[in-house]
């Protein structure tokens, strides 16, 4: 039974990537509209967009690590 539950648990844990996908969309969406509004700042804005992306990606990968933990450790 634990063999099957492991798979279902890992499957459920992966659902958390949905939020991170939306979060990254929001970051780049606001980045594109900000560049259109103020093109002179593209350089620094791109730096912050990449920082925002990396921090949101980290949350997605925390969830993925949790899924791997459930899958391979138990």
């Amino acid at each position: 039974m634990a063999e099957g539950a492991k798979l279902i648990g890992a499957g459920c844990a992966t659902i958390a990537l949905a939020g991170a996908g939306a979060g990254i969309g929001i970051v780049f969406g606001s980045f594109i509209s900000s560049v259109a509004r103020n093109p002179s700042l593209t350089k620094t804005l791109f730096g912050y967009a990449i920082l925002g992306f990396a921090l949101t990606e980290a949350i997605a990968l925390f969830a993925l690590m949790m899924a791997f933990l459930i899958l391979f450790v138990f």
Partner: protein
Amino acid sequence: MFFYSPLEQFTIISLIPMHIGNFYFSFTNSSLFMCLSTGLFMCLCVLVTARGGSLVPTPWQSLIEMIYEFVVSLVSEQVGEKGKQYFPMLFTLFTFLLCSNLIGMIPYSFTTTSHFVVTFGLSVSVFIAVTIIGFQIHGLHFFSFLLPPGAPLILSPFLVVIELVSYVFRAISLGVRLFANMMAGHTLVKILSGFAWSMLSLSGVLKLAASIPFAVVFALMFLEVGVACLQAYVFTILTCIYLNDAIHLH
């Protein structure tokens, strides 16, 4: 369908087994690639600036200058004037992560930062260093860092607990972020290339179907190189932010 599990690329193989007492000190492929990445970058720097470097920079010299300028502007922008004394540490941190991530991209090589023990060691040592600096500069006043400015005092017990938890979680999240990015990225590439390989064994026309996962793997390699450089940058910029918090409080 898979001969090896996708995580097989992360196994540690001891090249020169050494045991001191019952301690395991053998020279593993992870330490080999760590020496390789630091050694390569050091040789590059020494060779490039052999005779003080030429006035008209050679391509390699301009590469080193670019990396140097990048980290200098990063540190001075994030931590300001007081950050200058921590620049050497931040520069070695950035170049070590950059080189070990990029070397890990070569097929059949080993990414040292894809193991949690390596990145966790790095992030906890950074966390301890930053906390010591904070207490050294501000003494007990450093605890005021746990209460963000302008927060209403009624909320303070609740806010202090949350700030303390998120302060301590910085050590873990800094390490897990780098580790998870590296491991998940390489696992994704391995699984998709496993698909492309096993699709090749299909009969006749279906072999062409193997080109789809192969194209995805091709695009993913660009993404992986981007992620490799990006994660080294993010690790360094977060260290600068935490250093800035320790030096200038809020």
